[in-house]
């Protein structure tokens, strides 16, 4: 029967497979979109600092040296020193790990909670939808940062609780996006076909629908990553979060803020810059990521 219709090959005979194809595709998207390539470059630097930071910095980030306190940037101390004589460059680099960890962990947590609740709401509708929707509405009724403050204040001042608070604050964003995307697909042809193939409802949700809404969820994750970093730093800034003397961008900005008036600008500026670059990087990544993970674009 195959003689009846000659196969037309739309994608051309030569096709690289697997990882090589993904790599090729990523290279293409980055070549097409310079801004994304730049953001990827920043991401590589941030990840490098997060992983290898403690091993490459010139000074111990916690070691104080009162003789060298409040020194402006110089060859010995690139970003200067703070009121206890600690090297700010070392502290900024080392803090990368903690800040990105908080961001990644809280985004992963909110993806699990909000994403799954959202697609269940969109797919099943009815009471599931109503409950998830009202929970999201309740969270959105509060000013988000104030809510995060409240959660950390109630649960206790630890890294783990900052992660939980950041995740809860972002819950409505994820639940709503996932709900909308799943709702569109609940009666799509391939979902009906999956039912005919004997897939249970839960399996349809996780195996058939979830992978299809991943592109938009990944974009969402990239965007909230920046917000999560800001949130964690914000909580630390007002004293509800990571505690001194641990190196963290938010605390460092808070500590440096009081020295701005007396002219020691470098204490707050450099951690602030690091914070800005990280947020900037994750926000820029969003669009590029969508192009890379979308199978439609992979031709």
């Amino acid at each position, binding site marked *: 029967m195959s003689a*009846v219709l000659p196969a*037309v090959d739309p994608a051309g005979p030569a096709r690289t497979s697997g990882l090589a194809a993904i790599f090729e595709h990523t290279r293409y998207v980055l070549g097409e979109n310079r801004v994304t390539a730049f953001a990827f470059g920043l991401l590589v630097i941030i990840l490098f600092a997060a992983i290898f930071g403690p091993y490459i910095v010139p000074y111990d980030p916690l070691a104080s040296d009162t003789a060298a306190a409040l020194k402006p940037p110089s060859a010995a101390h690139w970003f200067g020193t703070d009121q206890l004589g600690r090297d700010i460059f070392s502290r900024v680099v080392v803090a990368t790990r903690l800040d990105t960890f908080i961001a990644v962990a809280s985004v992963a947590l909110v993806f699990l909670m909000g994403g799954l609740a959202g697609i269940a709401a969109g797919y099943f509708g009815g009471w599931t939808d109503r409950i998830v929707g009202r929970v999201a509405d309740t969270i959105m009724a509060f000013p988000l940062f104030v809510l995060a403050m409240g959660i950390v204040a109630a649960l206790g001042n630890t890294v783990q609780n900052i992660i939980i608070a950041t995740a809860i604050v972002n819950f409505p964003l994820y639940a709503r996006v996932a709900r909308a995307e799943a709702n569109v697909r609940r009666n799509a*042809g391939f979902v009906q*076909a999956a039912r005919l193939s*004997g*897939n249970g409802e839960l399996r349809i949700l996780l195996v058939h629908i979830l992978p299809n809404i991943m592109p938009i969820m990944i974009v969402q994750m990239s965007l909230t990553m920046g917000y999560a970093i800001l949130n964690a730093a914000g909580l630390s800034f007002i004293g509800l979060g990571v505690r001194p003397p641990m190196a963290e961008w938010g605390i460092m900005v808070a500590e440096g803020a009081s020295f701005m008036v007396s002219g020691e600008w470098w204490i707050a500026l450099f951690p602030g810059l690091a914070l800005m670059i990280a947020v900037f990087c994750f926000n820029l990544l969003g669009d590029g990521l969508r192009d890379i993970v979308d199978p*439609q674009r992979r031709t």
Partner: protein
Amino acid sequence: MTAQPLLDVHDLTVEFSTRRGIVKAVQNVNISVAKGETLGIVGESGSGKSVTSYAVMRILDRAGRIAEGSVMFSGIDVKAATENEMRDLRGREISMIFQNPRAALNPIRKVGDQIEDVLRQHVQSAASDRGEKAIEALEQVKIARPRERYHAYPFELSGGMCQRVVIALALACNPQLLIADEPTTGLDVTTQKAVMDLIVELTKRRHMSTILITHDLGLAAAYCDRVVVMEKGRVVETAKSADIFAKPEHAYTRKLMRATPRIGVSLRDLLPEEEGAQAPPPPSVMAGLDPAIHQSSNDSSSEAMDPRVKPGGDDITKPLLLVEKLVKEYPRQGASAVLSKLFSRKPPVEAEIFRAVDGISFTVGHGESVGLVGESGCGKSTTSMMVMRLLDQTSGRIAFDGEEIGAIMPQAFARLPLRKSIQMVFQDPTDSLNPRFTAARAIADPIMQLGDIRGRDALRARCEELAGLVGLPVNLLDRFPHQLSGGQKARVGIARAIALHPKLVILDEPTAALDVSVQAVVLNLLQDLKQSMGMSYLFVSHDLNVVRLLCDRVIVMRAGRIVEQGSSESVLGDPKDAYTKELLTAIPHPPLPVH
């Protein structure tokens, strides 16, 4: 042809720059349209027929450009005209009707306002009488009660009505040239006839020229003076529409004509001559050479083919599928109903219920194919969903192979072994494949859930076997749906449906989204599979010509009820019901040569 054609497209080449380099969508096309002439451009998807018309209007995508050639419209060089000049030309001199009328209308504005916009844009009337002119435009497209419809929103109108509004919009400024891009695709056959008759009548009366872009050779031949046939961006033939059917010059035209389902041919006749000659069908397929109609009368041959078919008498008393007094009701969710629910405690009145399926009964025998025919909204899809157990019925009984499946809730049915026996091929091959699954994974899905084949290698072997059955090259199994053509996707859908050896397959317009030549191949494939696997088909379709070819019996539905049923030969050859007659006469009949 007159000396000065209204539109003269000379040596047109349109290029699109894509990731894989420059693609020539249209190459060296020459088309001319005389004043008052109706020209049909016919071709399958990807033939460049739409791109040609977009180039004439100069509304190509940003990636596309006119690389060579010229487009002259009544003395104006379209290629050299400024954007301002083009804006004046579009709508006033050349206007266009698009495929999907609902998408062409702004959903949140009244249709009258939208017609006034066009008049205002091209300064065709003073502000004072604009409303009257809009109503007049609606009158001319034969919309009943135009004064009321002026205030209607697009969602309040049916598909055919929307297309009439779009025509009114297109003709509001008395253009000289009308380009209709698949104006009736997606409309019912009776609506199609009404819309086409209207277009032809209006354009003839105004002495306008028309370009009708369509994939349907029969439609083009029935309504056009001349027909241009395009293939892969090139014009392969231009001829008077009467001539093109009498003596098609080009091999591609012949192939297209052969593939168009029509009266008096069998499924095999649809396939291209060369391929039919090259591969003589295997013996099991030979029976299919007879028109499908003869099959039910020819009991002995079908019995030999399929051991599951019981002796004649038993066959009638114990059909494979028995549907009795099936009803599906939906609550009508009008605004007034919602309001009354909010503000009063009275239960909603009886009239608030809409019966999509209104007490229908029919049977499908072992090894039989039954066509379920009707226009959109007649309840044929709802019926098939209930039989599939994807939807719960309101009342009535459904028995499959002696078991009462109507009593089983759809959610529970998914995991039953009976699920294997009823499968479905969906209307839209693109929508019915998970975009993240490869072809092999899609075919394997039912086997993994309900089948007894375990292990990666065995599963792969079964997928390759199924791919062979449906004629899908094995090297395509690792492709994602978007890397496959429409016909290939249809094959994946069919392979998935037959993976579990079902007894009944519901085909929901399986070829509606396919080109005619691909449709011909897929229909033959379905026929062959039925022969070799002994399945029964419930074929849901609006295309009577296709049903005639594939089905033994036909059920005609209208507004949730069955108006007529019987053998294909008798129902379609000698219809008793007025509605069936109307459906049959609405099919555009090309002037066919006698065999």
